[in-house]
């Protein structure tokens, strides 16, 4: 469903992403890991449209994504949550979802909105001002909710769990696991926590200095000496 | 034909000097506070009218009016600073509206005090022509061009060498970091407004000495200054001078080749061109990261 061919992204002299090749099938859950600065968010930005790759191709459902303007990528089926939550200001939580749904799918399905609110446990905050009245966990949940409201075929989750304390984290993780069960969509998730990744994902891709250095099952990848070295800088596996 | 063009270039160059003073004043304030003082042109005009008043009532050379004009215009400038600093939120846009309002107040005040007649200097020495080869100009034009250059160099030296000057640049690029280093941003902002007033004063007296003044001129001057600031790009004083000269030359050429009505038009078009095609201005450095 999503195919990255030799995607390279350079900012001036800095190469953030270097010749990445990746394939995501339509209902896989794939983890994207790597040390800080490895280029993971930049890769997401290029798929969702905030950044233009210097070279390479991104094909989604046989559509050349790079020829599609940013605001149309949601209609294509690419949903994205931001690492630092970006709620739509001056709107309530419900209105955030309404706008996402109306413009991301072209129609309004109020039942679906309620379903998403329930699933992400935001129902009781539906009328609150999204930018000013939500706690961090709720803001993160809203990020996922907004993306879901656009009825995506592929969901890009960028460090959804970062910054949430342990109990909230466990609940959120359960939500993420149910996410795939309930909405059979492809998920590409950036996370740092190895346990989380191992439990959620059937496949893991590892990025280091912008290059893809491993692509396999969690067990394979996390026992790969190259991968371990990239995290610890250790010579010995 | 080419003589006409050469003359236009020369006149434009001379005019560019005063334009540069006006633009520099605007740029200083924009540099330290990131706001555009839409009343700046009116401050220049105020100085021009004070020079007129001095000459017509006291029968003295406009140059001698400079001390009085300095006091009045700098005071007005400080008042504008005071008002702007009272804005609570959305300072960038609200300051536009506020200074727009101040501009209206000043223009109408000038209208009320001095009526709407056109004035220009009656000083004979200023109006005498100075001929360089085949190029013709008035004594006043050349005098004030030299004055402008001197002032611009002084300002440039001051900004790059003196402590206050460096403080101004520090506040301009990173206000909070400057505070941590012990610089009081409010003082530097105040100073830039005062300096802006000083430059406006000289530009105003120059304007009176070789041009005509009328109350409506205020906003046209502000617009010219803004065009030059955009042409020059951020953070470049030589750029301001070059941009000012460019505008002066383009205006003079338009007047010669087409008509004087169109000279405003070419200024505007130049402005829009630069705004869209060269967002960093012709000479400006790229936005430096703090």
């Amino acid at each position: 469903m999503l195919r990255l061919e030799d995607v390279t992204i350079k900012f001036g002299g800095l190469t953030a992403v270097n010749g990445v090749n990746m394939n995501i099938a339509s209902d896989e859950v794939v983890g994207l890991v790597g040390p800080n600065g490895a280029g993971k968010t930049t890769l997401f930005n290029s798929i969702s449209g905030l950044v233009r790759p210097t070279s390479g191709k991104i094909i989604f459902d046989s559509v050349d994504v790079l020829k599609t303007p940013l605001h149309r990528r949601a209609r294509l089926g690419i949903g994205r949550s931001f690492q630092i939550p970006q709620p739509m200001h001056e709107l309530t939580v419900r209105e955030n979802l309404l706008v996402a749904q109306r413009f991301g799918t072209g129609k309004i399905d109020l039942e679906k909105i309620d379903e998403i609110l329930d699933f992400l446990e935001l129902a009781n905050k539906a009328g609150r001002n999204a930018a000013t009245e939500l706690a961090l966990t709720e803001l993160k949940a809203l990020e996922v909710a907004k993306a879901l409201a656009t009825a995506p075929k592929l969901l890009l989750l960028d460090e959804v769990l970062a910054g949430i304390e342990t109990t909230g984290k466990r609940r959120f993780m359960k939500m993420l696991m149910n996410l795939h069960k309930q909405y059979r969509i492809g998920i590409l998730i950036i996370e740092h926590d190895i346990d989380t990744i191992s439990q959620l994902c059937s496949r893991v891709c590892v990025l280091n200095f912008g290059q893809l250095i491993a692509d396999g099952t969690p067990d394979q990848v996390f026992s790969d000496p190259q991968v371990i070295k990239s995290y610890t800088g250790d010579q010995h596996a | 034909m080419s003589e006409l063009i050469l003359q236009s270039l020369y006149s434009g160059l001379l005019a560019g000097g005063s334009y540069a003073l006006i633009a520099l004043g605007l740029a200083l304030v924009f540099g330290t506070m990131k706001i555009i003082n839409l009343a700046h042109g009116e401050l220049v005009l105020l100085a021009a009218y004070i020079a007129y008043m001095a000459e017509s009532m006291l029968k003295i050379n406009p140059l001698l009016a400079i001390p009085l004009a300095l006091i009045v215009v700098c005071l007005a400038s400080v008042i504008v600073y005071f008002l702007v600093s009272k804005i609570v939120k959305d300072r960038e846009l609200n300051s536009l509206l506020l200074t727009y309002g101040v501009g209206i107040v000043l223009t109408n005040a000038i209208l009320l005090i001095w009526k709407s007649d056109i004035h220009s200097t009656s000083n004979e020495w200023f109006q005498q022509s100075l001929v360089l080869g085949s190029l013709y100009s008035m004594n006043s034009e050349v005098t004030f061009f030299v004055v402008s250059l001197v002032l611009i160099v002084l300002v440039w030296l001051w900004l790059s060498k003196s402590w206050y000057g460096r403080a101004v640049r520090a506040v301009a690029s990173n206000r909070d970091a400057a505070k941590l280093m012990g610089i009081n941003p409010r003082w530097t902002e105040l100073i830039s407004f005062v300096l802006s007033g000083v430059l406006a004063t000289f530009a105003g007296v120059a304007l009176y000495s070789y041009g005509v003044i009328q109350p409506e001129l205020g906003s046209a001057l502000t617009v010219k200054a803004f065009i030059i600031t955009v042409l020059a790009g951020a953070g470049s004083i030589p750029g301001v001078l070059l941009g000012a000269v460019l505008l002066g030359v383009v205006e003079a050429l338009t007047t010669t080749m087409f008509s004087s009505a169109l000279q405003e038009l070419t200024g505007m078009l130049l402005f829009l061109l630069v705004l869209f095609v060269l967002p960093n201005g012709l000479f400006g450095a790229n936005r430096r990261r703090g």
Partner: protein
Amino acid sequence: MKQYRWMYLAVAAVVLYVLVPLLLGGNLYLMSLVVASLTIGGIALAWALLGNLGGMVSFGQAAFFGVGSYVSALLTLKFGLPVLPAMLLGGVGASLASLAMLPALRLKGPYFALAILAYAQIFRILAMEFRGVTGGAGGLSGIPQLPTVFGFDLSAKVGGYLVILSIVVVFLWIYYLIRKSYYGLALKAMHESEDATRVVGVNSTLLKAMMLLVSAFMTGMVGAFNTHYINFLEPDYAFGSSWTVIPIIAAIFGGYRTIFGPLAGAVAIYMIDQLIFKNLIPNGHQIILGVLLVLMIIFCPSGLVPVLVEKFKGKTHAEA
């Protein structure tokens, strides 16, 4: 609650459409003031719409006003079009002119405001220079008046009042519709979180452009009305800065975040300026408006009337 709203509107309609003409119709001077203030009100509404929904502060409404005036005048004068359709086309003409401003949309706040100012000046100078078409600085004369419709002479003061009133009412309705639509929600969110809206599929650039077109259309149509109402047109008048300045002050005075605010502000400001300030300082009465603008920006940038209303509400609650 809904039925109360209909009652208020019905009462207002009766007052505006029936009582005002009956009571004021005899006083031609007052009537013309009211018409002029509604004209300003239409522009103020268009300005507020662009600022509120589009998120863009504009210093160039005069450009649209002038273009609308000239398009309508020329269509009726040179091409013999009937007046009312020509007015509509005046609005369309202004919208088309605003297309030239589309590149300015990607500029940040202050730069956009000033780029629009530059456009306004350019249009004014163009109108002066193309004397073959626009009659140059001398302007156009003999512009057709508003017609007689259903036996009702619209060119009379009362007739003109009804026309501009209806135009403004329609504008209010359009503003209201946009605001409560999903587009209105998206526009609201776009001010501070444009990327977040784009990622979920909002074509923010297109929406902003549409708001510019709507604002231009409204202002242009009002300009067209004005030219047929006073039968006078010349570049300095049609593109004069008063058409930019007074609506801005009016909108801020009345509260530009509400739908009725700009309109109420326009009527108030214009009437007070013409009836009181002008008598105090005949040649420079705009100075008071300037002072008012400065004070408002400092003390109540979202509008004077809303602040007063809040204070009033606060007092009555305390007493209750």
